[in-house]
């Protein structure tokens, strides 16, 4: 259902999420983000192959907003499909989490914040 790959690119730590994030697979995403924010300050989430995200998946992103602010951790999502972006937008999470088109934009944005 979900594949999570990680890689370090320059100073950025990239989490690539593929497939569908639903109630059961959101646990893996939760664990991964929880682990990454302990040691990294600049995080990019690659959503190019993210097909679907449920409210439980949104809950994962939401739950780290406060923690990231406090720890001055910067996270940007990129490459979201219209459908997935729409889900974030309806909930209003697009106001709290930065989302851009490409990886390059994401890198720039992270450095700009």
């Amino acid at each position, binding site marked *: 259902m979900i594949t999570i790959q990680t890689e370090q690119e320059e100073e950025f730590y990239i989490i690539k999420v593929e497939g569908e994030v639903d*109630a059961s697979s959101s646990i893996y995403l*939760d664990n991964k983000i929880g682990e990454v924010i302990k040691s990294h300050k600049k995080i990019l989430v690659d959503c190019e192959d993210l097909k679907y995200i449920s*409210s*439980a998946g*949104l*809950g*994962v992103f*939401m*739950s780290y*907003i*406060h923690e990231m602010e406090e720890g001055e951790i910067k996270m940007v999502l990129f490459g979201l499909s219209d*459908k997935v972006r729409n889900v974030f937008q*309806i*909930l*209003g*999470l697009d*106001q*709290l989490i930065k989302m851009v088109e490409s990886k390059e934009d994401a890198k720039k944005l992270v450095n700009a914040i």
Partner: protein
Amino acid sequence: MMSKRIFHLRFFFTTALVSWMAMMVFTQLMAFANANQMEHGLKEYLPELFYALFFLSIYSFYKVQLGRSRDANLQELLWKVFVSGLIATIASLILKFIEDLFLSHSRIGENPLLTNLIYNINIGLLSAFFVSTFIVWEKFIFYQKTKKLILGWRIYVYTLLATLLISLIFSIVNFVLSQMFLFIILALFLLASFYFSANLKWVAYLNYKQKWKSILLFLLILIYIGYFFNYLWGVQMQQPEALVFNGMWNLTIMGFFIFIFIYTFISILVILFNLPTSSVFEKKLEEIISFQRLSQSRNAGKNEREVYQILLESSVSAVLADAAWVESKSGNNQDPLIIKYKIGNDEVKLITEIISKSKEKQIVNSDPITNLKTDRYITSIKNNRFKSVLIFPVYIQHEIIGSLILLKEISDGFNEEMITVIRTFVNQAAISIENFKLIETILENERYIKELNIAKNVQRSLLPSTMDHSSFFDISAYSKSADEVGGDYYDIYKVDDNRTVVIIGDVSGKGTSAAFHMSQLKGIFHSLVQLDLSSHEFMVYANNALAKGLDKNSFITASIYIIDKNSRTIEFCRAGHCPTLFFPKNAEKPEYYFGKGLGLGILRNNEFQEYVNNDKIQFKDGDLLVLFTDGITEARNRLGEEFGYDRLKELVFKNAIKNPEEIKNDIINALYEYCGTKSPHDDYTVIIIKFKEKI
């Protein structure tokens, strides 16, 4: 109330007694007439007739009496035969004693009257004894019956009883059967007796002690039979011409005598020959019973300890172990359960050490799937009381949950067969324990299901059962959850006849926790709705209230609508919930109202108020408002395509002219048709509001 059985018993007993008396009376009269060379004027066949009646009655009597004892064991039946034989013999001996007493003092003994009297009493006694023995032996033969056997036996019994009639007819027509012919018939009966005497299957089921006891009883019964035959023979030899009724020439008496004699005799021989093997049979039987106990233990709801206890006892007795123990790793890091048999703690420790160190272990069995070497056998241990050890692990799904250790004081004390038997026991014990654990799990699951049902009922009660609203619009709602407990919520509150507040919400996640959050939302709604707040204020307060109560990963999306007749406005605030579909009557198409918004519980501080808006729509008569949850738009068909916003919009557009109830039904039907299922995959909620047109 006399039961039918008792009535029958009394009836047959009475007829037997009466016909026997009648036979005696007529015999006496005839004997008296014969002695005095007088014409008695009585029919010659009368004694024969009454004897036949007597015999049939006594036969029926025992048939009824012993018929009940189908369940009684053979030992008891044998004992009954022995006792009835004993009584008959003692009675007969007393008669003989009286006869001898008279004989020694006078010549009355030679009186044909007395001879006949005593003879007929003896005939009565021996007939009763023979018949009762016969019927018990029949039960022995039918210990394991087959259709063929039942049929053969029936023919045989009817033939035997038919001889009563034949004798009677012969005596009526005054025909005397030639001795030669008589012998042929008796020889046939003898053959039949041998044939039926082959049915001795019950012998195998007697244990050693029972066999000895049976031999003794059979021998005594044989002596009684012999005694009576000897009596008949004796009288026949001495004074046959004095007898009016001669039992020696009676086909029935002889037929019964031949059978019970042969069967008794052969039984004794067969039991004798079976004596040496009986211990083996007993052992096998014991193993089967042990096996049964192990199998049944799960039904009795016994716990693990008892299963191990039975395993230990059965195994010890099956292989005659000198000592043994079972240990179980009952998980949870508890101390292992150890049940010991004739062995102390120190020795258990010592042997365990020897087992782990010993290099002379013989692998006698291994698990076919995991290829784990399982059963081990140490044939000789030095410097210990015990010389041989068998080790059997107890497996559940290839995981060791315990072991059985059997010890003997002689080296090489276990053979192949013992190992096989114990393996079977151990496997059965494992099955029992596994079943026991499965039942525990099932019970636990059932408890959860019950709890979930309670949650379901609680949740259902959270949704309004009636839609109490202002009279200027019509409303219809549908809500169905995919799981036992869903996360969709809607509610309605009529402030007055001009104002009504409607809320729709979706709690993230599913199941019981969603239901709890939903009930929080309901509490908040019903508290805040009374304060006459704006929709924006309502959401800000709701967010504050929920900030403390929601899980870290949980949020709630909701939209609240304050519908006001006076200002003709719908004031609403969208807290991250799906957009609202609004279709003004005079518009071309329905439109989604997005606006700014953020889910409740996402920002748990004052910043939240900046992320939500207070929006307003003007409505006119005939306008249509559609509220829904994301379950509707995200519902997927078989190809994984979502139902989507456009399809919903199109449906509303096409059906706008209908009333809310019909529109709701159309949407739901279209949705299920699209998904191709009859049950929802997600929680579906849709609410249709239509403002009344003034007519």
